[in-house]
């Protein structure tokens, strides 16, 4: 019997390429890839596993993603079990010790913001709920800065030669982001108290930021596709209320919200949940600009 072990060890030694100059960031979601781009500038090459057109709950540990994690210096994801169906497997398949949870090279954004809707009891009869709290934190722009501070520190720790540059880029980003937050806050005042219906319960951080009032969701339980019975009940529930929009993300089926839109006479509205999700949401700043533009378009 030949020894496959020694053949493999030799191949590993021959093919282990030296690290390239760029610091490679593997981001689960586009918002963190965009943030790494803002904070790393030319020193960082950031790619996102998920696009704005894809449902982050349903990604598979595809070969291309394994190869990317294998070569990454830093993995940055939302965490809080949002990627539980694929990220743990990806990390184990990729054999990259630098980016395992607990290492400097693994950053879970949800660890650095306050999560909402942490369930008191977890029971799947309540749908596919997240036991650590609602993980869709990026729909509130106030959650971006704390993550940026940590991400910048990690970039500096992994690539000490660039630490000064990363600190400068963080400061630059902080100033621009705070100015934008003030601008957005002024526009938010006009939206406070507006009622909305949502497709999936993934907008609560946006609701908290803008003071929107969520009447209900098209999914009877999180992760269970909308059914005709539940939509009819929702239509009756809307009754005396006056929601201004049925909000969904770009990756969700248009049919349930359009059905309800036709019956209730309320516009169906696609809001950007991340970078690249809708036209015009081309960078982090634009995501919230377009979000506000679209909400103002249906406001009273």
């Amino acid at each position, binding site marked *: *019997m030949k020894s*496959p*072990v020694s*053949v*493999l*060890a030799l*191949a*590993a*030694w021959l*093919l*282990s*390429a030296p690290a390239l100059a760029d610091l490679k960031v593997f981001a689960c979601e586009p918002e963190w890839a965009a943030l790494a781009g803002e904070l790393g500038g030319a020193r960082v090459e950031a790619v996102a596993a998920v*696009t704005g*057109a*894809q*449902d982050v*709950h*349903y*990604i*598979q*540990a*595809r*070969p*291309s993603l*394994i*190869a990317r994690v*294998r*070569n990454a210096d830093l993995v940055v994801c939302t965490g809080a*079990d949002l990627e*539980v*169906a*694929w*990220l*743990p*497997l990806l990390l*184990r*398949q*990729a*054999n*990259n*010790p630098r980016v*395992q*949870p*607990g*290492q400097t090279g693994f950053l879970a954004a949800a660890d650095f913001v306050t999560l909402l809707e*942490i*369930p*008191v*009891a*977890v029971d*799947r009869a309540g*749908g*596919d709920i997240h*036991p650590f709290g609602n993980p869709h934190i990026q729909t509130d722009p106030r959650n971006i800065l704390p993550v940026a501070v940590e991400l910048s520190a990690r970039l500096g720790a992994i690539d000490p030669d660039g630490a000064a540059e990363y600190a400068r880029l963080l400061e630059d980003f902080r100033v621009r982001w705070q100015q934008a937050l003030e601008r957005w806050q002024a526009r938010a005042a006009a939206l406070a108290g507006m009622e909305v219906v949502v497709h999936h319960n993934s907008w609560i951080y946006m609701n908290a930021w803008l003071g929107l009032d969520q009447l209900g969701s098209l999914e009877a*339980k999180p*992760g*269970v*596709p909308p059914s005709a019975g539940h939509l009819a009940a929702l239509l009756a529930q809307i009754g005396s209320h006056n929601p201004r929009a049925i909000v969904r993300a770009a*990756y969700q*089926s248009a049919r349930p919200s359009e059905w309800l839109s036709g019956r209730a006479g309320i516009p169906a509205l696609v809001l950007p949940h991340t970078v690249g999700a809708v036209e015009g949401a081309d960078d982090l700043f634009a995501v919230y600009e377009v979000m506000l533009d679209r909400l103002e378009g249906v406001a009273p």
Partner: protein
Amino acid sequence: MNRVPFAFFALALPVALILVPEELSAQGVVSGNAFNPSISLILDGKYSYYSDDPDDLVLPGFLADEEIGPPEEGLSLGESELVMSANIDDQFYGFFTAALEDEDGDTEIELEEAWIQTLALPYGLGIKAGKFYSDIGYHNVKHPHTWDFVDAPLAYSVFLGGNYGDTGAQLRWVAPTTQFIELGGEVLRGDSFPANGAANDGAGAFTLFARTGGDIGVSQSWRFGLSLLSADAEERDSGEGDVTFDGDSDLYMVDFVWKWAENGNSKLRNLVVAAEYMHREEDGDVAIEDSGDAEYDGDQDGLYAQAVYQFRPKWRVGVRYDYLTSSNDVDGFAEPTLLDDGDDPYRFSTMLDFSHSEFSRLRLQASYLDTGATDDTQIFMQYIMSLGAHGAHKF
């Protein structure tokens, strides 16, 4: 196969239930069970109809495992699978799964997998050790609850007894390239079909595998792999006919899978096409009860191709084609049934399944099997439910 009496599990189940946290405290109180492993339990039950008695099923031309039988006729329980896994520390990950099966009125427990894996080796290397499903092929690592059809592909049934799992160690390497390239090999005890008897002082089988894959645009992804399983068999029993085999069994495998989803958004609609081809060479001696010994040189081929289309968020439809062919030399005498290579069995299956959520699935399947000697129409109804932790599934 390791089996212990039902009493063992009667002890294990209450322990497992105690380990499940009753609820997570909103106040964030850390109690002793916060570090418990992820636990899930799979429940599987079915109804099976066969136009021919499944106990009489023989696939002429193949020395197959004793356990190739299709699901029991009528109402039956499939495997009830208990899975536990967790990071052990920052260096190791552990995985355990045991299945309970009802057989002829008795409950039996089978240890399916119990292994550890390294998390922190350099150079893209990883080691797995323990009892595990071998990484050969595409279908082999899948547990029954993740199968797209009620039963395994015919080639897996006859060549690997459903799938090949054994005790041993694996070395796997992921290349530092943009293109996904993975190479690996395993040294195994050689206790499970197609090996037997733990030959070579308890290292009776080894495997090699190589695979690559990637994306085509944003909507498509693929994977291609080559594998070899080389096993020594000592006094290996084969199903009906009381045939014992001693010798070498080499299995060569080619696998391919291609997935499509519009914009890569698989939640709404997606298509998965998978195909595998296997070639087995067996060389040694057979002892046939009441007939005597003979030299045996078997060449056999098997393939399957399947397509599963999720056409709405909850609904999937699938078709599968299976084909087997063999060319066997048995010196000395002509064994009339088991080693007869005159017939090429094939099977055509079609299925429809419905998933209310990711955790529940109901399935209807119809198959037509022509073994050359007999033909059989099969109808299955199945439920597969998963309780507890959300297991991630391989590509």
